[in-house]
C-alpha cells in the first residue's frame, strides 16, 4: 500500500526540522553591539542601499578611528543585508537580522514601501528601527520603536509650494511625477494642496514610471499648457533626462524638485539643462558649516565620490544611534550591559531595547550633517529644509526654510 498522502507531510516535517536544527545557531556569541542595516543593494533602486551602506560604514569607521570601534567597552559591528528592493524580502531580511544575527537595532530603509513592510516586525520584536530617509508619514505611525532622520512628505511638499508661489512668484505649475514611487506620488499630492492653498493653479499633471527612458510625450503635453514652472518630485535618476528633454522641446521655465534629486550624478546627466532649477534638500554642499564640510571631505577620501542626501541621512542615523548608546552606557551601565549581552532575548535585553528606542525618540537638537535634528512626538525629524538653486552647472544655496 502506498502512502501517497504522506509525502507532503514528510516534506513539511523535513523542512520544519531543518529550520529547527538551524535555530539557535547565533546564540553563544560574545558581548557586542550588532547593528543591522538593510537596503536595496541590488535591483532597480540599488543606489539607495549602496548610499545607506556607505553612510553607516563611514560613521563606523570614524568610531573605529576615534574609539577603537567600541561604545561603553563593547565592540560595535554592523551587518548589512540586501533586500533586492522587494517589500517581502525586506521583511525576511529584518527577521534574519533580528533573530539570526542578534541585532539590537536596525537602520533602514530608504523606500517607504520597504520600511512599511519591515517596521511591523521591528515593532513586534521590540527592536528600535531608524529609517534614514523614508518620508511617508505612515512609517513611524507603526509604533514607538520606529523613528526617522528625515522630514516627511507633507512638510517638503508644502514648503516647496510656498517657495514656488512666494519666492519665485509663479502662478501656473505643471506636475510630472513618478507613479511607481510612493515618495513621488506623496510629494506631488502635498505640493498640489499647498500650491492651491497659496492661490496657484496646477495646469497639467503628468506621470512617468521610474526606469523610463523617454519623456517626450509628457513634456510635449506639458508644453502645450505653457506653465510658469514644472514640479518634478522624482529621483535624480530620471530628473536629468527629463530636464534635457524639456529644454530640447523648448520648455525654458524653472524646474522644481525635492530631496530625491540629490546626487552627484544629477548634474552629470542633466548638464546645462538643469540651470535655473531649484530643489529642496537636507544639506547644501557649499554650506561652510564645519561638521558638514568634514563629512564631505571624509566621504570623498573614503569612497572617492560626493555623498548624496541618503548617505548623509544614513550617516546621521548611525551617529544618532551611537550617541544614544553612549548615553545609555554612561547613564545606565547595567541596562547597557544587558543590551549588548551575548545572551539574546532576555527580558533585561528587551527592556534595554525599549530604553534605547525611548532615547532615540528623545533626540533633540542633534547637530547632524543634514541639519539640526529634533524628533517630534511622532518620531519624525523636525529640521530646516534647504533650497538649492542650480546655476552655471553648480548647486548653490538659495534659502533655508524652517518648519
Amino acid at each position, binding site marked *: *500500500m*502506498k*502512502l*501517497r*498522502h*504522506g*509525502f*507532503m*507531510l*514528510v*516534506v*513539511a516535517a523535513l*523542512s*520544519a526540522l531543518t*529550520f*529547527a536544527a*538551524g*535555530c*539557535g545557531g547565533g546564540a553563544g556569541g560574545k558581548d557586542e553591539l550588532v547593528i543591522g542595516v538593510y537596503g536595496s*543593494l*541590488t535591483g532597480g533602486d540599488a543606489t539607495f542601499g549602496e548610499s545607506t551602506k556607505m553612510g553607516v560604514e563611514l560613521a563606523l569607521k570614524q568610531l573605529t578611528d576615534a574609539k577603537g570601534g567600541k561604545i561603553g567597552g563593547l565592540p560595535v559591528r554592523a551587518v548589512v*543585508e*540586501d533586500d*533586492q*528592493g*522587494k*517589500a*517581502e524580502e525586506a*521583511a*525576511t531580511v529584518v*527577521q*534574519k537580522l*533580528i*533573530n*539570526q544575527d542578534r541585532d539590537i537595532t536596525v537602520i533602514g530603509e530608504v523606500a*517607504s*514601501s520597504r520600511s*512599511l*513592510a519591515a517596521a*511591523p516586525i521591528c515593532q513586534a*520584536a521590540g527592536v528600535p528601527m531608524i529609517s534614514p530617509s523614508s518620508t*511617508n508619514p*505612515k512609517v513611524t505611525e*507603526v509604533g514607538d520603536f520606529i523613528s526617522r532622520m528625515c522630514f516627511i512628505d507633507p512638510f517638503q511638499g508644502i514648503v516647496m509650494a510656498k517657495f514656488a508661489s512666494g519666492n519665485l512668484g509663479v502662478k501656473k505649475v505643471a506636475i510630472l511625477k513618478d*507613479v*511607481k*514611487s*510612493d515618495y*513621488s*506620488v*506623496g510629494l506631488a499630492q502635498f505640493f498640489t494642496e499647498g500650491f492651491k492653498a497659496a492661490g496657484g493653479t496646477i495646469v497639467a499633471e503628468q506621470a512617468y514610471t521610474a526606469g523610463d527612458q523617454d519623456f517626450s510625450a509628457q513634456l510635449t503635453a506639458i508644453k502645450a499648457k505653457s506653465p510658469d514652472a514644472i514640479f518634478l518630485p522624482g529621483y535624480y535618476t530620471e530628473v536629468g533626462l527629463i530636464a534635457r528633454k524639456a529644454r530640447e522641446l523648448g520648455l525654458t521655465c524653472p524646474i522644481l524638485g525635492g530631496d530625491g534629486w540629490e546626487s552627484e550624478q544629477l548634474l552629470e546627466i542633466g548638464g546645462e539643462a538643469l540651470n535655473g532649477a531649484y530643489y529642496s534638500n537636507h544639506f547644501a554642499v557649499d554650506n561652510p558649516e564645519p561638521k558638514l564640510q568634514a563629512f564631505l571631505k571624509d566621504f570623498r577620501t573614503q569612497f572617492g565620490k560626493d555623498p548624496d542626501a541618503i548617505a548623509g541621512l544614513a550617516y546621521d542615523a548611525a551617529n544618532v544611534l551611537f550617541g544614544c548608546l553612549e548615553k545609555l552606557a554612561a547613564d545606565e551601565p547595567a541596562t547597557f550591559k544587558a543590551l549588548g549581552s551575548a545572551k539574546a532575548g532576555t527580558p533585561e535585553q528587551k527592556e534595554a531595547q525599549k530604553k534605547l528606542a525611548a532615547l532615540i525618540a528623545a533626540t533633540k537638537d542633534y547637530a547632524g550633517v543634514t541639519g539640526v535634528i529634533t524628533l517630534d512626538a511622532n518620531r519624525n525629524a523636525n529640521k530646516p529644509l534647504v533650497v538649492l538653486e542650480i546655476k552655471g552647472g553648480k548647486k548653490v544655496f538659495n534659502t533655508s526654510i524652517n518648519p
Partner: protein
Amino acid sequence: MKRSLWRIVGPLVTILALVALNVLLPRVVNPYHFQVLMLIGINVVLAVSLNLVNGFTGQFSIGHAGFMAVGAYASAMFTLKLGQPMVNSLHGVPLPVAQGIALLLALIAGGLLAAAAGWLVGLPSLRLRGDYLAIVTLGFGEIIRVVILNVDAIGGARGLPGIPQYSTFFWVFGAAVAVIMLARNMAHSTHGRALFAIRDDEVAAEALGVDTTSYKVLAFVLGAFFAGVAGGLFAHFLSYLNPSSFTFLKSIEVIAMVVLGGMGSISGSVIAAIVLTLMPEMLRGLKDYRMVIYALMLIILMITRPQGLMGTREVSLSGLFGKRGPAKGAA
C-alpha cells in the same frame, strides 16, 4: 481495505499535525526561519497552482503574479472592511478561531475574484496557443499591476499598510495541503487525464472527444483561484501590500519553480518551491555574488536536467523505499 480507513484517518492526522505544529513551531523556531518557512508554504501554493495550468494542461501562463495580486488585494480589502470589524465584534469566540474564520472568508473572496480573472484570461486561450497565450497572460498581469497602481482606494503606489496578521502556520500549510490534494486527486481523475491529454497533444485530445476548450478554462480558473488564495495568505502574513511585489519577475519565479520541479509533477513543484525559496537565503553570505550564482545555478540545472528535478514522476513513500513509482500523469 486499508484504503478506506486512510481516507478518514489521513485528513484527520493532517489537520491534527497542522494544529500541533501551528502551536509548537512559533515557540521553538527562530522567527527568521519561521518567516522563510511561511514563504515556502505560500510559494508551494503558488507553484502547485501554476502547475495545474502550465504542467498539467501545457498552457503557457506567465501572468501568475497578476492573479496573486488580485487575490491579495481583494482579500486584504475584505478583511479591512468586513473581517476585522467582525473579529472585533465577536465576543466569546477564541481569538485564533475568530481570526481564522475571518481569514478563511477573505481567502475565499480573494480566491473567487482571482478565479473570475482567471476565467477572463482563460477565454483567449480558446483562440491562442503557446507563446501568444503566454504573452497575453503576461500582458494581463502587467495590466492588473498598473490598474492597482492607479486606484487610490487600495493605496495606489503608496501601498496598503495595516492588514491584520491572520495568516498562521495552520492556514498557510493547510492551503498548501489542500492545493496538493486537489492537484493529486485531479491527476488521477478523468479530468486530470483530459488535461494531460491536452498537454501532450491537443489535436489528438480533441479527436478523442476531450472538450479541450472548457478543460483549458477550468485549469485557468482553478490555478487562478489558488494563486488568489496564496496572495491572500501573503497579504495577511506580510501585513503590507505594494504593487511592486507583483511584477512579472514574481511570475517568473513561480514558473522557475514549476519547470525546475518538473512539469506536471506535484511533488516536483513542492520540492522546487522549497529549494528556490531556500536557495537565495542560503546564498546570502555571498553578498553581491548571490544573484549571479542563483542565475548560474538556474542555467546549469536547466542544461543538465531540462525535464526538471522530478520529470513527471512523483515522490511516494514506496518510491523512497526502493521501488520506482510509476510514471503518473505521463498517461
